[in-house]
C-alpha cells in the first residue's frame, strides 16, 4: 500500500471512533437538555393538569381556574397564521425552485429578504404588526391581526424548507413529466408536490412551532383579553402570552404557568402527530417511492 494510502487508513482508524463519540455525545447532550427542561416543567406543573383545566376559564388573574378560552384563541390565531402563510409561502417556494433561473436577480432578492426577515426581532414584529395591521389596516387588537403578524414571522422558515424539499425531488421526475406531456402546473400538482410532501409538512411543523412559541409579537397585536373570542376581529390571549403573564407579571401564577407550558407542549405533540400522519397516509399514497 502506498504511503498516502497507509496515512488515510491510519487517520480513519482514529477519526471513526472520534466522530461516533462526537455525534452520539451531541445527541445525548441535546436529549439531556430537553429532558431537563421538560422534567422541570412536569415536576412543577403536572399536578394541575386536568380536563377541567383545559376547559374552564381563568380565575383570579389566571392563578386558578383553567385556560379554555385561551386555547380557543391560540388555535384561532394558529389557523389564521397557517391559512395566510402556507399559500403565500408555498407559492414563493415553487416560484424560486421551479420557475426562476438559479441565479436570477429576483430570486436572489426574495431569498435575501427572507433571510433578513428571519432575523427581525420578535418585538419589532409586534410593534410593526400593531402599527400596520392593528392601526393602519384598522383591525385593532384582534386574532386576525396577531395571526397575520405571525404569518410574516414564519414565512422564512416555511419557504426555506419548502425550497429544500422541492429541490430534493430528482430532476428525472420533472423530465419524465415533460416527456409525458404534462404542463408544469400539472406536474407540480400531481408529481412534485406530493413527492416533496414530507419535507413540506416538516417545514410547516417547524413554522407552527415557531408561531406557538411567539410572545412579544402577540402582546401588541392579538392582545391580552382572556375571554373566548366571538369572532376573528376580537382580541384573544394566546397561550404563550398567558404563560408570560403568569410567570412574570402575576404573583403566585407560577403553578398555572408550568401547567400551561405543559399544555402547549402537548398541543404541539398533537399537531405534529396529526400532520405527520396525514402526510404519510393521505399525500404520500399518491406516489410510489422506489
Amino acid at each position, binding site marked *: 500500500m502506498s504511503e498516502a494510502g497507509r496515512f488515510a487508513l491510519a487517520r480513519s482508524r482514529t477519526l471513526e471512533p472520534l466522530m461516533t463519540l462526537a455525534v452520539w455525545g451531541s445527541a445525548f447532550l441535546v436529549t439531556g437538555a430537553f429532558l431537563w427542561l421538560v422534567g422541570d416543567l412536569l415536576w412543577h406543573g403536572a399536578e394541575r393538569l386536568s380536563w377541567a383545566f383545559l376547559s374552564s376559564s381563568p380565575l383570579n388573574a389566571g392563578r386558578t381556574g383553567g385556560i379554555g378560552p385561551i386555547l380557543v384563541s391560540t388555535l384561532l390565531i394558529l389557523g389564521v397564521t397557517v391559512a395566510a402563510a402556507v399559500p403565500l409561502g408555498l407559492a414563493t417556494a415553487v416560484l424560486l425552485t421551479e420557475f426562476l433561473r438559479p441565479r436570477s436577480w429576483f430570486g436572489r432578492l426574495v431569498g435575501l429578504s427572507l433571510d433578513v426577515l428571519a432575523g427581525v426581532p420578535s418585538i419589532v414584529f409586534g410593534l410593526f404588526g400593531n402599527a400596520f395591521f392593528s392601526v393602519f389596516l384598522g383591525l385593532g387588537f384582534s386574532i386576525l391581526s396577531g395571526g397575520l403578524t405571525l404569518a*410574516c414571522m414564519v414565512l422564512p422558515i416555511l419557504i426555506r424548507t419548502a425550497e429544500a424539499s422541492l429541490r430534493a425531488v430528482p430532476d428525472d421526475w420533472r423530465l419524465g413529466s415533460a416527456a409525458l406531456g404534462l404542463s408544469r402546473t400539472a406536474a407540480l400538482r400531481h408529481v412534485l408536490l406530493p413527492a416533496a410532501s414530507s419535507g413540506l409538512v416538516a417545514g410547516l411543523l417547524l413554522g407552527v412551532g415557531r408561531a406557538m412559541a411567539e410572545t412579544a409579537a402577540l402582546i401588541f397585536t392579538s392582545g391580552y383579553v382572556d375571554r373566548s373570542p366571538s369572532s376573528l376581529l376580537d382580541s384573544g390571549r394566546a397561550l404563550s402570552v398567558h404563560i408570560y403573564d403568569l*410567570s412574570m407579571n402575576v404573583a403566585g401564577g407560577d403553578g398555572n404557568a408550568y401547567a400551561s407550558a405543559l399544555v402547549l*407542549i402537548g398541543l404541539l405533540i398533537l399537531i405534529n402527530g396529526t400532520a405527520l400522519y396525514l402526510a404519510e397516509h393521505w399525500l404520500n399514497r399518491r406516489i410510489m417511492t422506489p
Partner: protein
Amino acid sequence: MIWSKRSISSPLSVDTRLAGWLSVAAGLTATVLVVIVLFLLHESWPVLKRIGWLRFLTDVAWHPSEELFGLAPMLLATLVSSAGALVLAGGLGVASALFCRFYAPPSAARPYRRMVTLLAGIPSVVFGFWGLTVLVPLIARWQPPGVSLLAGILILTLMILPTVALTADAALAAVPKAYLHGAAALGISRSGTILRVVLPAARSGIIAGLLLAAGRALGETMAVLMVAGNVVQTPHSLFDPVRTLTANIALEMAYATGEHRAGLFVSGLVLTGMIILLAVAALRLGGARSHV
C-alpha cells in the same frame, strides 16, 4: 395538452398564468421586509434627524434621559452572544442531523427528530423562565451573579438548535443516494464519507439553516432578557451580565416616549442592518444551490 402549444419551446398558457400568480405571491413576500424597514425608519426618524447616526456608535453610555445614545456595548453583546450560540448550536445541530441520518438505529432516529421539532415550539418565555430558575442559580453558585453572557449563550443555543438540526437534516436528505453508494463502493469509512462527501454536498443547505438560526439568535428577545443580566456594559468575561439590543427594546419600549422611543427603533434598524450584512455574506459563501 401539447397540441395547445404554439411552438415546441413556448410555455403553456396555464404555466404562464401560474408563474404570474406565483410572482405576485413572491413579490408580496418580499415587500413584507420592505414595509418593516420603512416602518422602522419612520419611527426612528425624529432622533436620527436631530442626532444623526454616528452618535449611536460613539456615545459613551446609554442614558437617553441624559441624551446619551451609545449602542456599542449592547451591539457587542448581541454579536458575541449570537456568535457563541451559533458555534455551539451549529456543532450540536449538524451532529444531531448526522445522528438521525447516519448513526442512529431507525427506532431512535424518529423519536429524536420529533423531540427536536418539539424543542422548536417551546416558547421563549419558558426557556427564559427555566433559565432564570434553574440555570442562573447554578451559574451563580460557581460565579455570581449568575445572570451572564454565558447563560445567554447557553439558552440561545438551546433555542436555535432545532432550526439548525432540522434544516441540516433536510439538506442531508437531499444528498443524492448515488454519492453514498459511490463512497461505499470506494470503501470509504463512514466518517470519511460524512466529512468528505456528504457535508460538502449539503453545504449550501446547512449554511442556509445556519443563517436562519443566526437570524433567530440575533432577534431573540424574551429569553435573553431573563437570563443575561441586562446591564449595559462591555463584557470582559463570560460571566459578566450584558444587555442585548433586543432586550433593550423590550425593557424600555413600554415606558419610553419621544426621542427615547425613537432611539429604540434605531437599535432595531441597526439589528436589521447587521442581518442584511450577514445574509449577503452567506450568499457569497454558499453560492448557488447545487442542482444535480
